[in-house]
């Protein structure tokens, strides 16, 4: 049962965090160090909103992949783009919404999983292109919308 008097508003390493009941909201910018701080904050404070131990590592991984793409592609490495992350836990499922103000997702949807040729010669082994494959493998209910110059992405993660 969520404790409704618990509300924390704090700044953790340039990340604004609001915790309320089974909800955590974070605001931060597209600078890689700051994104890392945001991820660490989610993992550190996750138990406050009842994110279970066994899902916490995968959640950090999925969020890292999505956030790296926001930093790299949506904001094209510009470090001061605003990013927002809202996490809600409901009966052990974790529901996330991510929002950025960068360029739209090409094709209007997150890319499909890419199949890589791992039999290829050493020099041709892929060093990237894994991000959305990992996300799609792990999450349910992935949804993307462009709303008023902003990207809104949501997904669910079950234990």
């Amino acid at each position: 049962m969520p404790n409704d008097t618990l509300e924390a508003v704090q700044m953790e390493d340039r990340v604004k965090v609001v915790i309320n009941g089974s909800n955590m909201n974070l605001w931060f910018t597209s600078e890689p160090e700051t994104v890392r701080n945001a991820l660490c904050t989610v993992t550190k404070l996750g138990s406050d909103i009842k994110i279970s131990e066994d899902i916490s590592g995968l959640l950090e991984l999925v969020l890292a992949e999505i956030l790296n793409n926001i930093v790299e592609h949506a904001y094209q490495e510009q470090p001061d783009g605003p990013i927002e992350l809202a996490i809600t836990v409901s009966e052990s499922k974790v529901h996330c919404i991510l929002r950025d103000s960068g360029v739209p997702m090409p094709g209007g949807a997150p890319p499909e999983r890419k199949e890589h040729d791992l039999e290829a010669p050493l020099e041709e082994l892929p060093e990237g292109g894994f991000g959305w494959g990992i996300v799609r493998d792990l999450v349910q209910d992935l949804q993307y919308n462009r709303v008023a110059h902003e990207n809104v992405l949501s997904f669910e993660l079950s234990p």
Partner: protein
Amino acid sequence: MNLHANETNGAILVTVEEARIDAACAIQFKDQMREVTEGETNRVIVDMTKVNFLDSSGLGAVVAAKKQLGTGRSMELAGLSDTVRKVFRLTRMDSIFPIHDDVQSALDQAHAE
């Protein structure tokens, strides 16, 4: 990014002294791997026991480090946490790297490939 290397049993043992190999440090990982693996030794064993988080940028840096070593030398991994191992499995990169439970079992094997 803090890597630390020493030669043992004819292998270079690289210990990753970081909790994370992620987008914020992927390039440093690749560059420092080049530095610490300079030499002739065939086997490079990377001890990831202290790494509790690796994303696909980190994975890319690990692959890049293997490519730097060239076809003549092997790169093996040891001490992967559950989530780190999952990243290798999801991307099927566990078929590219010999993966050992820990450094001792890596050393116990004369050759991993």
